C-alpha cells in the first residue's frame, strides 16, 4: 500500500482538483458538479484496444438485477422437468408448455411459462465444487468467481473477511460506478446467510467497506424506515443548506488544509452525500407506497415480490447493481420457504416457493419489459446449486427425507434476460435425469463473466488483492451466444 492513510485510494487515479475546477464552477460544496470524477469508470482502460470490437452483447447493459435464490432451488421440479425419468427422479409435478417452443417447465410456474418469451432459460449450469459442499462455499463461488479457501476448525466457513474476494456487485460499483447521486449497489432485503455466517460471498472483501452493498435489513413488504437516507425531522432542507454553508465557511478559512487535502476528494463525497439526502431519489425509489396497489399485488404481497418491485424502482433511479436475495436463510427450514428442501420437497415447493417465485419473477420481467427497462438491464435469476435428481439420497452428507432432495452443483438452471439477450430461447440442455449437462455446460464463472461482459467490463481484467497480487476479475468465458 503506497497510499498515505487518509488518502482515498481511487482519487490518485482521478482528475486533480485543478482539473476539476475546469470541469465546472464549484457551487455549494461542489454539489452542482457532475460526479463522474469521483467515481471513475475503470472499465474502458482495462479493455485492450479492439478486444471486444463488434462483439455481440458487450456493453449492452447499464445495470443488473441479480435475483439470487439462496438455498438451492430444485431445478428438476421447477425449470427442467424430466417426465420420462423414473419415479424416484421425476417427482410428482407435471410439465407444462411455455412460450419457448418445445420447452416445458413445472406446472407450478404457470406465469413464468407465459413470460419466458422475454428470457433465455439456461439448463446447463454446472460445476464441481472444490471439496466443500455447503451453501456458503457455493454462494461464494457463484458471486465472487473464486472458491473460498478458509474454513474454520469446526468445518464451517469463516465469516466475511477483509481478504475475501469481492462479490460481483462490489466489483461493478468500483469498476463501473453510476454517474447519478444514487447508491451504486443495493442488496435486498437482507444479506446472504447460512446458519450464523452472514454475508459471506456478498461483501466487498479486499476492496474495502466503501464498496460493500447498501443493506436495508428491512422487509419491503412492510413500511420501512430509512434513517441515513431521509432528512431528519428536525433538519428541513433549508437547515441542511445552512449547515453546509457554515461548513463551507469553516473549511474555507483554512486554505492550507484545503490545499493539502485537495486530492482526498472529501468535498466530493460530501457533495454526493448531500445530493443523496436532499434529492431523495434513492429514498423515493425505496418508497413502495408510490406504486399502485395493483402493481404491488402483481409482484406478490410478500417480501420477495416487494423486493423485486423495489429493485425495479432502484434501477429506474440509476442504481447500477441490485441484488435481491431469496429472503430465507440458505439452509433454513423448507416448510418456511427456504429452498433447501432436504426434509420436505414437493409440498413446500408447490404451496410456498413456486407461487412466490413464479409471480415475482414473471412480474419483474413483464413490468421491466413494458417500461423499456429490460433493454438496458440484465436480469439474472439463479441459486448456488440445484438439487439431486434422485429423491431421498444424500449427496452432501445431509440427511434427506424420502421425498427430499440434496445439494447438486453438477447440473442446474438459470434464467437470464434483458440487455439484448435472446428472448424465448433455451440454452444448453441436461441429460435424461438432469444430472449433468448434455451440451454447452455453463460454469458459474462463465455466468459471472457474462454479467461483467454485458456491462462492458472485461472479465479478464487484472485486479489486485489485499496483498497486491494480480488476479483475474473472473476466470470464465462470457456467453456471447446468448445474444443472437
Amino acid at each position, binding site marked *: *500500500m*503506497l*497510499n*498515505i*492513510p*487518509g*488518502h*482515498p*485510494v481511487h482519487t490518485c487515479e482521478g482528475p486533480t482538483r485543478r482539473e476539476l475546477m475546469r470541469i465546472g464552477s464549484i457551487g455549494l460544496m461542489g454539489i452542482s458538479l457532475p460526479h463522474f470524477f469521483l467515481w471513475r469508470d475503470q472499465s474502458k482502460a482495462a479493455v485492450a484496444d479492439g478486444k471486444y470490437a463488434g462483439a455481440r452483447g458487450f456493453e449492452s447493459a447499464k445495470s443488473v438485477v441479480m435475483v439470487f435464490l439462496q438455498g438451492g432451488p430444485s431445478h428438476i421440479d421447477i425449470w427442467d422437468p424430466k417426465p420420462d425419468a423414473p419415479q424416484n427422479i421425476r417427482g410428482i409435478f407435471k410439465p407444462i408448455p411455455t412460450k419457448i417452443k418445445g420447452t416445458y417447465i413445472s406446472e407450478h410456474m404457470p406465469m413464468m411459462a407465459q413470460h419466458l418469451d422475454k428470457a433465455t432459460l439456461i439448463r446447463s449450469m454446472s460445476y464441481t465444487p472444490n471439496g466443500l459442499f455447503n451453501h456458503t462455499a457455493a454462494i461464494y463461488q457463484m458471486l465472487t468467481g473464486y472458491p473460498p479457501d478458509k474454513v474454520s*476448525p469446526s468445518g464451517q466457513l*469463516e465469516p466475511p*473477511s*477483509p*481478504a475475501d474476494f469481492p462479490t460481483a456487485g462490489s466489483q461493478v460499483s468500483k469498476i463501473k460506478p453510476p454517474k447519478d447521486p444514487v447508491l451504486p449497489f443495493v442488496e435486498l432485503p437482507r444479506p446472504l446467510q447460512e446458519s450464523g455466517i452472514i454475508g459471506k460471498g456478498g461483501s466487498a472483501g479486499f476492496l*474495502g*467497506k*466503501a464498496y*460493500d452493498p*447498501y443493506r436495508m435489513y428491512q422487509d419491503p413488504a412492510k413500511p420501512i424506515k430509512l*434513517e*441515513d*437516507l*431521509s*432528512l*431528519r425531522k*428536525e*433538519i428541513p432542507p433549508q*437547515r441542511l443548506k*445552512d*449547515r*453546509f454553508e*457554515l*461548513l463551507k*465557511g*469553516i*473549511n474555507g*478559512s*483554512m486554505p*492550507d*488544509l*484545503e490545499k*493539502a*487535502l485537495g486530492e*482526498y*476528494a*472529501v468535498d466530493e*463525497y*460530501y457533495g*454526493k*452525500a*448531500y445530493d*443523496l*439526502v436532499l434529492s431523495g431519489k434513492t429514498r423515493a425509489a425505496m418508497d413502495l407506497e408510490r406504486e399502485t396497489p395493483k402493481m404491488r399485488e402483481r409482484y406478490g404481497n410478500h417480501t420477495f415480490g416487494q423486493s423485486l418491485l423495489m429493485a425495479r424502482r432502484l434501477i429506474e433511479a440509476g442504481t447500477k447493481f441490485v441484488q435481491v436475495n431469496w429472503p430465507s436463510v440458505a439452509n433454513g427450514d423448507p416448510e418456511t420457504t427456504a429452498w433447501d428442501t432436504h426434509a420436505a420437497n414437493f409440498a413446500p415447493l408447490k404451496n410456498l416457493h413456486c407461487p412466490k417465485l413464479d409471480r415475482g419473477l414473471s412480474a419483474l420481467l413483464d413490468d421491466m419489459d413494458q417500461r423499456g427497462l429490460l433493454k438496458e438491464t440484465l436480469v439474472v435469476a439463479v441459486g448456488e446449486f440445484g438439487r439431486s435428481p434422485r429423491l431421498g439420497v444424500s449427496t452432501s452428507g445431509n440427511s434427506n427425507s424420502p421425498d427430499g432432495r440434496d445439494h447438486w452443483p453438477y447440473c442446474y438452471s438459470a434464467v437470464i434476460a434483458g440487455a439484448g439477450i435472446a428472448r424465448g430461447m433455451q440454452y444448453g440442455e441436461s441429460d435424461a435425469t438432469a444430472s449433468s449437462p448434455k451440451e454447452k455446460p455453463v460454469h458459474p464463472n462463465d455466468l459471472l463473466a457474462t454479467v461483467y461482459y454485458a456491462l462492458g467490463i472485461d472479465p479478464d481484467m*487484472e485486479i489486485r488483492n*489485499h*496483498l497486491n*497480487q*494480480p*488476479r*483475474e476479475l473472473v476466470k470464465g468465458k462470457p456467453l456471447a451466444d446468448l445474444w443472437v
Partner: protein
Amino acid sequence: MLRKLILTSSLAAAVLGAEVRVTFLRDVAPIMNKVGCMSGTCHGSAKGKNGFKLSLRGYDAQFDYESLLYDLSGRRFNRADPGKSLMLAKPSQEVAHGGGLRFEKSSDYYKTIYNWIAQGVPFGDPEKDSVAELRVEPKEIFLAKPGEAVTPKVVAQFRDGLTRDVTREASIESNTPDVARVGTTAEVKGERVGEATLLVRYQGKFATVPVTIVNPKPGFAWKQLPQYNYIDQKLDAKLERLKIQPSPLIDDATFLRRVSLDLTGLIPTPDAVQAFLADPAPSHVKRSKMIDKLIANPAFVDHWTLKWGDLLQSSRKYLGEKGVYAFHDWIRDSIATNKPYDRMVHELLTSRGSSYDEPAANFFRVTRDAKPTMEKTTQVFLGVRMVCAQCHDHPFERWTQNQYYQMAAFFSAVGLRPGYEVGEEIVFDQRSDYGMKHPKDGRLVKPAFLIASNGKIPVPDDQSRRDALADWLTSKDNPFFAKAIANRVWSYFFGRGIIEPVDDIRASNPPSNPALLEALTQDVLDHNFDLQHLMRTIVNSRAYQTSIVANDWNASDRDNFSHAFPRRLSAEELMDAVAAAAGARPDLPAVPEDIGAEQVVDPHIGKEGFLDVFGRPSRESSCECERRSDFSLPQALNLVNGRTISDAVADPKGRIAKLVLSGRGDAAIVEDMYLASLSRTPTAQESEHAVSYLSGGAKAARAQDLLWALLNSKAFLYIY
C-alpha cells in the same frame, strides 16, 4: 512435397543446433518468463491454465521442465519437426492459444526454442547453467531533470563464470511509475521530480536500483531549520542532497492537537489548549514537557493497548468473552508498565498454561495452527511476509518454500486443549507426533531460523523448540526485529513507514531513508526496546512537528517526510472526539458510561455501527492494512445525516445545551466551541461570522448548526 519440407527444416535445425548449445535453464526458461508464460494470471497461477501449469514466475525450473516434458504425453515437442511442437505452435499462434501471440515465428525467441527442441530439449546443468549473480549498471540512477532517460544494462553471471547481457529478457519494474517509467526497451525515463526503485528480476535473482529525478529548477538555496535530534540530521542530509526544502514547524495549537491525538488518541480539552498556549516557556521546551505529560496520561495506555489489540487480533471471536478481557488486560499491563518490547514478545512466544491464568497464551489461541501462527509472528514482529512462500518461493525475496516450513516447525509442537472452566483453554507442548511435514513429500522438516543467528542460539528438535525461536527473534542480533518495530512505530506518527508497507520488509522494498531507519533501529537497541523512549524521540523531532504547508521545493515529495500529510482520525479517535467536543457520551451500545471508543475491548462492541463504517479493523488478520483510513460515501452519509453527530450536537445534557443556558455572550460561546472541536481559538473573522449566524435565529438550533459544521469540517476530521 510436404515430406521434403519437413526433412529440410529438421536438417536445418540440426545444423543450427550443432553450433550453439541451448539449455532450458540458461536459454529457454528466461524466454518463457519474459513473454509471460509463468505469470500469475497465466500458466503460473495456482491451478495453471487450460491444464498446463508452470511455477509462478519460473521459481522452480525443474518443475517447469517436467511439466513441459511429461504432461500431454510429450505432445509439446516434435523433435523430428520442431516447428510442429505445441511449445512453438501455441505461443506463435500457429494453433489457437488462449494467451494470444507471445512471439513471432521470425523472432529470435522462436529460433532459440526451435534449436533447443532440435537438440533434444536438454535441461542443462544447474551447476553451470543457472544464474549466480545479477548485476545492473549503473547501480544508482540520477537524472538531472524529468524527461531524461537512461537504459540500464543487466548482466547475468552464470555459475560457470560466463556472463550474458540479459537486459532484454530481465523484468524491470518501477515501484513508482509516475516518477520513473520503464519503457518496453528497458529505457528508464524520469516522469517527475522524485524517487523510485527499480526491481530487476531474472531467473529467480533480483537487484534493486534506486532512481532519483532531481528538481532542475534553478535558485535552490538550502535554509537550515532547527535540528532537535538525530532524526532531523538524517532527514536533512538527504533532503539537501535532493534539493528538497522541508516545511517549517507548526504552531503550538496545531502541535498540541496533533501530538495529543497521536500519543493518546484524544483531542485536547479546551482548558488544556488554553493552558498550553498561555505557557510562556519557549515553544520547544513546553512541547517536550507536554510530550512527557501525554505519555504519562492513562489515555496513552488505552491508545496503545488498542493498537496492540489490533496486531495481536484480540477478539472474542477467537478468545471468548473472558479470554478477550484477560488478553486485553495483559496487553494493557504491558503498555502501562512500559514493559520492554523484546520481553513482551518473548513472553507471548513462550507462553504456556491456562488462557485465564497466563493470558499471554491467548496469542496461540487466535491462529491455533503452526503455519498461521508463524505467518503472524513473522509479519507482526519481523515485518516479513512469509505467506507467499507457503505455496511457492517468494517471488520478490529470497524466502523459499522450505524456509516457510522450517519456520513453521518452531510452532508445530504447540498444543491446545480445553481447560477446567468454561471457555478456558490450556496451551501446552505436545510430547509426540508434533513434526512439521513438508507438503511436497511429507518428510519431517526440522526447525531452522530464517537467518542464522550470530549468537549461535542452539535449535533443539524437541517440543521446547519455540523457546529458541523466541530467543532468536527478540535478540539484538536479529536484523529484522528492532528495525521492524522502529519502522512500525514511526509510521503511526507520519502516516507511512520509512519502509512501506510496514509489514513488508524485503530487499526489493527498500527504505526511503536507510540512514534514518538505521539510526532509529540503533536507538531502539541502545535503549533496550523502550518504546516510550522511541515515541518520545520521534515526536520531539522537528520532522514530526513539520507543517502540512508545502513549498515549491517539497510539494511533490511523498517519501522523505519533508512536510506532513493530513491523516484522517481513526474510527475510535473520531467517535471519542465527537463525544468530547459535543460534551456527550460516545455513541456506543452496551458499555459502561465512562467507556470511550479507544477503550473498547474488541470489535464485537458496536459492530456494524459507526466504528466499522470508519474502518475499524475486524481483527481477522494481523495486517496493518486491515485498518482503513480512506474516506467513503457511507462515511459522508453518516457524518452528514447519521445519528452520531446529529444526536451529539442536540444532546440535552451536552455542550450546546449548557452553553446556551450559561448566559455567556455569543463571542465566548463561539470561542468555547472552537476550542472544544478544533482545539484552537477562532480568528477574528471566524468569530464574527459565527456570532452573526448565532444571532440570526433561535440560538440553541443555530449553535447546534455551528457545532455540526465544526464537527464536519476537515480540520476536525483530519490530523494536520
